[in-house]
């Protein structure tokens, strides 16, 4: 009889508490979003599954010695996984559109306003009882507005590891929601004529320029913002591997196998942070709300900056491409293209929007560096 009781006490059913069940339901919700709705499935699927594994009672995935414990400590606490992903993103990024029209760097810069504006929101939330965001927490939450998953995870792992799960989930959910969040803001801030503006064709960019570009970015980072060199350095390494043309094998590994392998573990590691005690609180709701605000402000400031630049620029600028200044490559550029096509079915903005889009990646890495340097 004793043995039977002991066996019963070891079953999942006997040990489930309500919080575990709720978190497993959250994991299932993420799986549903990934599989049925195709929301960033590459990340939400492993995150969702990781959340389920992490909340199984008596399985000990998250305890010292458990698999998820090690995945998290080896890859995410150290910042290694997001950086490897960033290298892969660098290897996937073609800066041609940006080099051909470098003005759009300012659009990528303007869209980072969402990040810094959200700091206020996070601090103001402290007035509501139940919220206690430090400036570090606020910075890590605000980076969601950069719409860049690896950057958000990297910064959160450094500044606010306790909030990492919620921040990563919010960042990837909003990136998946780009086609829903952005168009209304873009339409509200532009007129029909502005959306119809055709842009000049981009000049061809030489191979040498493409090779020197990542080195120039790295040099500037070394000189002015060493705190951003982990992110920018890995990004530039990936991009140089791509553009140099002499290490095709490394470049293709970074863009395919390596980024895929690391994505699996990054997702599991983030999922392991979705444990009941850290996720089931009112702060998570605050983070989700602040993320949406950060994203919307970023989109709006990008569009407004594009309108201002259009006033003074010799060549016409379609303000829609400003919205692509929030990173979310390439989704944000596709959205700009789509909204442009609605206004004028012959106006293809995709290549023009790729410029601010990749500028946004650099911009959010720089913003993350600034936050690390000033708050971390």
């Amino acid at each position, binding site marked *: 009889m004793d043995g039977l009781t002991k066996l019963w006490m070891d079953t999942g059913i006997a040990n489930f508490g309500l919080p575990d069940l709720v978190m497993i339901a959250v994991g299932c919700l993420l799986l549903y979003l990934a599989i049925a709705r195709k929301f960033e499935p590459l990340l939400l699927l492993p995150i969702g599954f990781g959340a389920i594994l992490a909340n199984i009672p008596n399985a000990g995935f998250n305890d010292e010695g458990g698999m998820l414990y090690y995945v998290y400590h080896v890859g995410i606490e150290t910042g290694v996984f997001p950086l490897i992903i960033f290298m892969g993103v660098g290897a996937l990024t073609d800066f041609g559109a940006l080099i051909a029209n470098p003005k759009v*760097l300012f659009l990528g*810069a303007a869209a*980072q306003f969402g990040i810094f*504006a959200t700091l206020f929101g996070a601090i103001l939330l402290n007035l509501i009882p139940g919220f206690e965001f430090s400036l570090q927490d606020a910075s890590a939450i605000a980076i969601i507005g950069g719409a860049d998953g690896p950057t958000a995870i990297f910064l959160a792992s450094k500044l606010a590891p306790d909030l990492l799960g919620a921040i990563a989930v919010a960042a990837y959910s909003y990136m998946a929601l780009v086609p829903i969040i952005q168009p209304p803001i873009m339409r509200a801030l532009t007129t029909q004529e502005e959306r119809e503006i055709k842009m000049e064709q981009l000049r061809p960019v030489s191979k040498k320029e493409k090779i020197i570009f990542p080195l120039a970015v790295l040099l*500037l980072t070394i000189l002015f913002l060493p705190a951003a060199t982990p992110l920018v350095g890995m990004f530039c390494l990936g991009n140089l591997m791509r553009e140099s043309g002499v290490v095709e094998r490394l470049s293709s590994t970074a863009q395919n196998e390596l980024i895929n392998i690391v994505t699996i573990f990054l997702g599991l590691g983030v999922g392991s942070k979705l444990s009941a005690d850290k996720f089931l609180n009112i702060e998570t709701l605050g983070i989700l709300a602040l993320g949406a605000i950060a994203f919307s402000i970023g989109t709006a400031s990008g569009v407004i900056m594009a309108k201002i630049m259009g006033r003074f620029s010799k060549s016409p600028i379609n303000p829609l491409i400003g919205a692509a200044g929030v990173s979310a490559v390439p989704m944000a550029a596709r959205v700009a293209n789509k909204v442009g096509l609605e206004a004028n079915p012959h106006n293809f903005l995709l290549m023009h929007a790729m410029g601010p889009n990749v500028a946004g990646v650099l*911009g959010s890495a720089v913003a993350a560096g600034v936050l690390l340097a*000033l708050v971390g």
Partner: protein
Amino acid sequence: MDVTESLFRALTLLGLGMTFVFLFLGLLMIAVNLMAKYIPADEPAVKRSVVPRKQPSTVSSESEINPKLIAAISSAVQQYRKTEAA
């Protein structure tokens, strides 16, 4: 730290952060413009074919002709076999 103090720090962060992001990307813009000015554009069809294969030029021209040559020969062989079979 009370809320007003935090808000003040956030305001400093906002000012410093945005200024820095703009300065940094502005410098990058200048660098890219300089690059565009001083780095000559690719000559058409220079890519790859010239640089590594300059010396063994006979080999490279051969390898470029090869596919056509092979196609011609194989079609001739096929024709010949057809006539042989008939």
